[in-house]
């Protein structure tokens, strides 16, 4: 029984790490623009496919692949803002939402078009395929990679946002965009940086997702992207640590539900997540650590 719980905890940690990263990437943009960027999920898909292509087809070294994926992810983030969102800033929030939806559909179906409607088997480098057993708890090197890199990325990001000049400027812009302009902050640059950072993080999470589940497909990003938003709501809107906490909470809750309920209920995992969302919205819409958001 103890082993089983411990196993669930490990599984929850892995899933939670991925959700936490996704939530982090999404909240960077959300904090500043109040935009639920549906396209974020699309970046997971793109990231995964970039890794697939460079690793399996071009057969490049993993580190090089990592760098390429991060750069490409950031570039696409930049493009997104430039092409689709910039023109709509300052307008109705809903317009941005709809456009971000359109962007996601575009990404999903372009991937379907260029790659294939069928899922691909995803084989990460051999390093990631080691399996371990510790006192009956099973995990793989991929799991270790996911947890460790998630923690490092989150730590690095927190350092950035708290200590660096640009990071502080981002927090200021997230709070009051007009006053930030008065400080001489180039708000456009801040927003673009937010998009690029978020997208790069999403790209790398795409790799993790693919490595963990062994396959990638054109529609893998959708649910992940939406769940990232659920994580943000649960953990606290507008709060960066909240997003990360929310991600882990979501990961644990989902794992727990799937693990403890009878097998037939496993397919209900997504429904659970959304029921959780509705509950949180009903009882405490601010989330765990959220700041009061003007309605």
């Amino acid at each position, binding site marked *: 029984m103890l082993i089983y719980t411990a196993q669930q905890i490990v599984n929850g940690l892995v899933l939670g790490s991925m959700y936490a990263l996704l939530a982090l990437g999404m909240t960077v943009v959300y904090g500043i623009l109040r935009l639920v960027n549906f396209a974020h999920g699309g970046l997971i898909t793109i990231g995964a496919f970039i890794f697939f292509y460079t690793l399996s087809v071009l057969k490049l070294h993993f580190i090089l692949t990592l760098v390429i994926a991060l750069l490409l992810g950031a570039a696409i983030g930049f493009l997104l803002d430039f092409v689709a969102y910039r023109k709509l800033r300052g307008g109705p929030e809903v317009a941005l939402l709809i456009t971000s939806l359109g962007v996601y559909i575009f990404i999903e179906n372009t991937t379907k078009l260029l790659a294939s409607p069928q899922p691909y088997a995803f084989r990460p480098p051999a390093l990631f395929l080691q399996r371990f057993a510790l006192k009956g708890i099973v995990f793989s090197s991929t799991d270790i990679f996911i947890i460790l890199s998630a923690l490092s990325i989150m730590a690095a990001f927190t350092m950035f946002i708290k200590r660096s000049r640009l990071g502080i400027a981002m*927090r200021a812009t997230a709070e009051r965009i007009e006053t930030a302009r008065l400080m*001489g902050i180039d708000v456009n640059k801040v927003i673009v940086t937010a998009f690029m950072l978020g997208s790069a993080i999403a790209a790398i999470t795409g790799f993790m997702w693919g490595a963990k589940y062994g396959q990638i497909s054109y529609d893998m990003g959708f649910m992940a992207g939406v769940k990232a938003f659920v994580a943000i709501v649960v953990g606290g809107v507008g709060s960066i640590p909240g997003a990360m906490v929310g991600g882990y909470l979501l990961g644990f809750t989902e794992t727990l539900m799937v693990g403890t309920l009878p097998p037939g209920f496993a397919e209900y995992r997504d429904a659970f997540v959304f029921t959780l969302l509705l509950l949180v919205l009903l009882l405490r819409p601010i989330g765990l650590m959220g700041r009061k958001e003007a309605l």
Partner: protein
Amino acid sequence: MLVVNNVHVAYGKIPAVTNLSFAVDEGQIVALVGANGAGKSTVLKTVVGVVKPLSGKIFFSENDITSWGPERRVRAGIVLVPEGRQIFTTLSVYENLLLGAYHRRDHKLRHDFEQIYNLFPILKERAQQTAGTLSGGEQQMLALGRALMANPRLLLLDEPSLGLAPLVVRDIYKTITEICQTGITVLLVEQNINMIIHLVNYVYVMQTGEIKLHGPPQEVFKSEDIKQAYLGG
């Protein structure tokens, strides 16, 4: 130093400022007064660049800055302390001050921090505190300090006394006078004319978007009628 020429500003279809012209000489403290809705805040926002005029020109130290964005104007030395202070409540006092100097690339920051802390000792005390926990008066000091960190040549103040107790306001204005004595030009908007009547060199009285009167304060406010007519008593 600052020359505003025939400026028209409108929010959508609603005109806010019509055919406005005025000037501020270097080293002066100039006040814009008038009742609510006269357009005073709009003038300041237009000078700092967050609001674009429909027509007219703005000159600063011989440069035509009409097309400049706020980022560029801040770098040139035009700094606004907005209405309601608008400090970043989720950031610390220190971070707020740091942001004031965001656009600066020079290395005299530590020196300037010392200066601000000398001017407002309470800020040094509360340097690591979240700005949202400060009192109204302390927030105003923070807002002033933040503006000073930007190395302003022209300081714009939008209703610095708003929502503050009279004693606090007195202190604030004392500080503002000290600031002016260091050579910084000040243009302020104020509804409470009694506070400023002895401090300022020149006054512009606005009503419904236009300048109706101007001159040294003693002349302009000679009679109670003027006060009644333009400022609602």
